[in-house]
């Protein structure tokens, strides 16, 4: 384990230790927050009893569908917009202010469109996730050195071949950033949609626990979501590092 990783572990553990001390000592009242160990204990029983299995299955499936669609559609849109500079100039300011719009207010509209099922939530996840992929694709394509494109032409590659063999590998680091952000935003969109408006899923379970003053359950679920986000990020981070190391070895 590297020095940096050890320090990161120390920071995270230290944070929870301080929280544990403050809540145990009564500096933070039990109505505000419960000790992290109590959150973990409650989470453990919930996972063992299978209380949140249905909610988990629903949320994960929605995030997975939204993520897959975001990456596919976002990449295609980024490729198209990049090829049309006039369109690009129009879209840049829109993309720049995109994340200021609270899209889940359109949940009622989405229900009217798709019906009361998983698709309104998937759509919210998609709307959040796709823009990140579009932006990353544009960034990646912008940074492909012109000399590589010339090289592809010199070798007489067709359009599809040039994209597959030259442009995509050259833009890969930015595309990977896009994947990461897209996953994060799909997750945020689906959970936020559930939290605010829907009647099921992990986000709704947190809102429900809050409304019924069930602090242990609420904090257990929050801990779960936080731990999930951190482990997803860590996994992607490690994967990215390995990919980068392989690229620089070549």
């Amino acid at each position, binding site marked *: 384990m590297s020095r940096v990783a050890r320090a*990161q572990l120390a920071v995270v553990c230290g944070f929870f230790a301080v929280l544990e001390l403050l809540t145990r000592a009564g500096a933070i009242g039990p109505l505000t927050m419960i000790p992290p160990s109590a959150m973990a204990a409650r989470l453990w029983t919930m996972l063992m009893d299978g209380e949140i299995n249905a909610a988990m299955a629903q949320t994960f499936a929605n995030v997975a569908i939204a993520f897959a669609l975001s990456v596919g559609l976002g990449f295609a849109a980024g490729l198209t917009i990049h090829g049309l500079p006039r369109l690009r100039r129009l879209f840049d300011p829109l993309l720049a202010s995109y994340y200021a719009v609270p899209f889940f207010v359109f949940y*009622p509209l989405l229900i009217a469109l798709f019906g009361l099922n998983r698709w309104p939530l998937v759509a919210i996840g998609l709307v959040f996730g796709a823009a990140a992929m579009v932006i990353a694709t544009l960034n990646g394509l912008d940074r492909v050195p012109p000399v590589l494109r010339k090289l592809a032409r010199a070798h007489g590659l067709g359009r599809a071949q040039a994209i597959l063999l030259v442009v995509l590998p050259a833009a890969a680091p930015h595309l990977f950033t896009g994947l990461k952000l897209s996953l994060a935003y799909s997750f945020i969109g689906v959970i*936020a949609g559930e939290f605010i408006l829907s009647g099921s899923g992990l986000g709704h379970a947190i809102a429900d626990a809050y409304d019924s003053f069930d602090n242990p359950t609420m904090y257990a679920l929050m801990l779960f979501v936080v731990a999930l*986000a951190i482990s997803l990020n860590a996994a992607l981070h490690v994967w990215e590092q390995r990919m980068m190391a392989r690229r620089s070895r070549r």
Partner: protein
Amino acid sequence: MSVRDAGERRSLRLGDAGLLLLFVVLAWQALYEAVGEVALTPPVATLANAGALLRSPVFWGHAGATASAFTASLAIGAAAGVAAGLALGFRRFSGLVAEPILTSLYTLPKVTLYPLVLLVFGLGLSAKIAFGVMHGVIPVILFTMNAVRNVDPVHLKTARALNLTALQTAATILAPAVAPEIFTGLRVGFSLTLLGVIIGEMFASQRGLGFMIINGINTHNVPTMMAVILLIVAFAVAAGTLLLVADHKLHRRR
């Protein structure tokens, strides 16, 4: 480039923007025809409703509440974000330790932490401000940190060779080098802070534009909800465009 070319390019751009707007309006109208007025009002009616809202004192009361919460969040987020980013940028090790932690926090669905914010700050203005800061501060930290890291070491060596004092180095070398990236961070933070404040108002508030939206949803007052959203989007896009233009100018000047 001649003046005439620039003029032609601008009119071409305006024409394109007009086309895009026309496309959006048509798509919106088509969507309205498909779902009806349970969930949507058509473009022209929404514009009229928004115009009526702009003349009503009730709306300005709510808009004022949102504006003051947003300004406070942005000021706190910018100051704290730049300060933390500078500190982490200059200490390489701390920066390396903090970066993945900050990225994880950035990707967290922060809405789920809203009950915690409410329990800590109570209902009202401070909870909204805290929520806005939570959304906006992390990109500011990350961009500032990277700006400091990417300062060309040769420039710093030059400063030492010229015997500049720390203050002179900061003013003449560091500030111009990091300003464009920090501005980009603040631009991203601007959008997310606005989102955070509006979401904050949607739950635990009786005032503000977010409250008007959620109230519209809960009472099936679709026209008001749509008009408020249109005004927020218009503001966000206008401010975002201005900030983007300024951002490009700053980056080009280097």
